[in-house]
């Protein structure tokens, strides 16, 4: 077990290093940060001096080594745009992204599971067909388009919900801000969560439907019915339980995706999270923020994968058996 975990950690470290190297190479092609940091009339000498102070003139290897050493100590430098430490900026933005991601995941589960069950049990009913068509839309329409559509329907035309931002937030502790405790905060969550969670919702719905159809055909369900158990018991106690195993795995992995790829939704709704900050950083060649975001995302995925691997170790006995 310990050997297994150690190997996984080593692999994770290598992945992180490769991501760092890739990120670092990429930044050499996104443009010149200096042009974004000064006004257009700044003289060439001043630009050069700034470049020197930022260490952008050092050899690439030196810059990379400096970046890795600092990153290992969670020091990602100072943002070029905001002139504030990147780690502080991220700490301020993380609550917004996490709240949005969890609400989206919750939405995907609460709406997706019942829809999936219904469509699985009544595969011929018109409502099921409607669900399937809706889910096709959810999978094929790009996120930003759904977002803009929702804004124009619910904000501009009906004026029910805000089109941007988090609403009023409440400070909890020294660094967490939440929108869960105010009416405007909750209202502001609705549209972005639907936009962000729609894809996952359709995914879960289709997954459950397929699993249900599969399970219902199995012998033990047939026997259960033959035994005269009520439908409710057969459907929910026996069938649903067995469909949930793959759903839980997928949901776990998708949560990572939701957090990491909230970028588009955050931009459309001006949601003050990490993804929005990342996109702004790309436009302004704010290398410290970009690198920190990429490292954080890589870290998130590596951690989730690591946990999943360890869980498999407990769930799947074959991984344990046959080892000395």
């Amino acid at each position, binding site marked *: 077990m310990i050997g297994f975990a150690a190997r996984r950690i080593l692999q994770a470290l290598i992945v992180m290093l490769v991501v760092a190297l890739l990120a670092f190479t990429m930044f050499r092609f996104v443009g010149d940060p200096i*042009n974004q940091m000064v*006004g257009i009339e700044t003289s060439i000498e001043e630009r050069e001096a700034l470049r020197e102070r930022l260490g952008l003139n050092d050899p690439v290897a030196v810059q990379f080594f400096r970046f890795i050493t600092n990153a290992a100590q969670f020091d990602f430098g100072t943002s070029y745009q905001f*002139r504030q430490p990147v780690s502080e900026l991220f700490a301020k933005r993380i609550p917004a992204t996490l709240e949005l991601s969890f609400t989206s995941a919750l939405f995907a589960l609460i709406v997706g599971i019942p829809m999936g069950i219904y469509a699985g049990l009544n595969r011929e009913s018109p409502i099921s067909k409607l669900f399937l068509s809706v889910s096709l839309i959810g999978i094929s329409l790009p996120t930003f388009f759904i977002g803009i559509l929702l804004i*124009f329907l619910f*904000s*501009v035309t009906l004026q029910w919900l805000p089109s941007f931002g988090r609403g009023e937030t409440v400070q909890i502790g020294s660094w967490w801000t939440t929108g869960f405790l105010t009416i405007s905060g909750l209202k502001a969550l609705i549209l972005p969560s639907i936009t962000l969670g729609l894809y996952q919702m359709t995914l879960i719905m289709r997954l459950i439907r397929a699993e249900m159809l599969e399970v219902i055909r199995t012998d033990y369900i047939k026997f259960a019915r033959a035994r005269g158990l009520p439908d409710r018991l057969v459907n929910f106690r026996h069938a649903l339980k067995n469909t949930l195993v793959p759903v839980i795995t997928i949901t776990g992995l998708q949560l990572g995706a939701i957090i990491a790829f909230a970028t588009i939704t955050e931009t459309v709704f001006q949601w003050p999270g990490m993804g929005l900050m990342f996109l702004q950083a790309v436009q302004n060649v704010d290398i410290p923020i970009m690198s920190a975001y990429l490292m954080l995302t890589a870290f998130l995925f590596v951690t989730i994968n690591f946990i999943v691997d360890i869980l498999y170790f407990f769930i799947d006995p074959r991984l344990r058996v046959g080892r000395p």
Partner: protein
Amino acid sequence: MIKRTVVIAAAMLAAGTGSAVQAETLKYAFQGALNALDPYSLNETFTLSSLGNAYEGLTRRGADLAIEPALAESWEIIEPNRWRFHLRKGVKFHNGNDFTAEDVAFSVDRVRSEGSDLTTRVPADAKVEIVDDYTVDFVLTGPNPILNYEWDTFYIMDKEWTTENDAVKVTSASDTTPNYAALHANGTGPFKIVTHEAGVKTVYEKFDGWWDEAKHNIDTVEFTPIGSDATRVAALLSGEMDMVYPIPVQDIKRINDNAGTVALTGPELRTIFLGMDQMRDELLYSDVKGKNPLKDARVRKAFYQAIDIEGIKKKVMRDLSNPSAIMISPLLFSKSDEFERYPYDPEAAKALLAEAGYADGFSIGMDCPNDRYVNDESICQAVASMLARIGVKVNLNAQPKAKYFAKILASGGYDTSFYLLGWTPSSFDSWNVLDNLMNCRDESGKGSPFNNGGFCDEKIDQLTDEILVEIDPEKRDNLIAEAFRISHENAYYIPLHQQSLAWGVSDKLDVVLRADNQFKFRFVTKN
């Protein structure tokens, strides 16, 4: 947050007992973020415009951009090289400190220090002499008629506050610790910044101790950056925002059709133009080898006459542009009506090309930004197709500004043959245009750093030097006109147009659309 809400509520309660006037909140959005609050760390319109609501300079500009006294009540040139400024008495900073000559001297030092992006606001060799608490002399090494032209955005900081908070050094991107002045503001302006979360929200509150009589009726201002054009417009249409800018030209009709919102448009000061490499002996991106066709004035004029500027205005800019014959906005130069564009005439252009020996045309690479100016990429595409009609094949390379500027400016080694650029003289004066765009330069950019094409006309250089020290306005304008005429006759540049500003505003709001695109809360009334 709870705490702040309580404070605001208490403040409103207090205001309510005094008068029955309702507290007015102005909510507005801009496409970019307000980054650092240090008034010297970025020489950029939006930053300076925002900070200009909290900070003030010795001068300010009115609705029509005319220079007005602000922290200086009056000034005079007592000797050709000595300017005397009489400071306003009784002015308080937001923290209650008095404004004195010490603060002016301090700000001059700070704005010229390392890390400042506004070092050109005060000439490097100028000296500041404090005569008394409310009189300051600027001693120059030569006459300078436009010394105070950019001082409306050279904001005066409180010496005591800055020193106390250890923020004397200008916030620079290479700093490793955050600078107090980057996160807090303490000016003399009509609004104080209460909270500032970069990239999320900035809240201003009316400053009751402002020296001038408030003509606005705004108590609180909330600024939110909204990057997505569609969301920004939606926020205005849904009534969540009182004002948003800029708005895309294609949304103007929609905003006007919507009940309760209007689109304000007006000419901007920025001139959009095309530049050509006239320095290299062989173009970097062309099939003409061994010589540079753009060194020939006939070829440049052929390019000029091949461009259907009215077509661009109508089709690309949807009538929101003013074609221009010179490199500065007509609002900023009195003699601009003496200039007229070469007429659009593809036949004449073809003849000129043939005369220069390129009857069959040639190919050329063109650089263009795609996220910097209004419809920049579409303008370039239009130019490319117009040049194709006279046999010049344009290979367009349109890219985001971060990559574009890195390529075509000095830092990229002026790696371009033909490019589109926009320029607003920050001093609102022609000398700035001549100095930055039209003087000779060497390969590293010494001279006119933004003369990317690198043409060199000694007569213009000489005129630029004369204009710098000429005090008589009439004579000065004649010299400027002469320099612009030389550029026009040689087609060193191809000016295109001044683009338009477009703001989306709720009809409850009275605002002033200033041609420099600065949004000043002191001109706003809400009803």
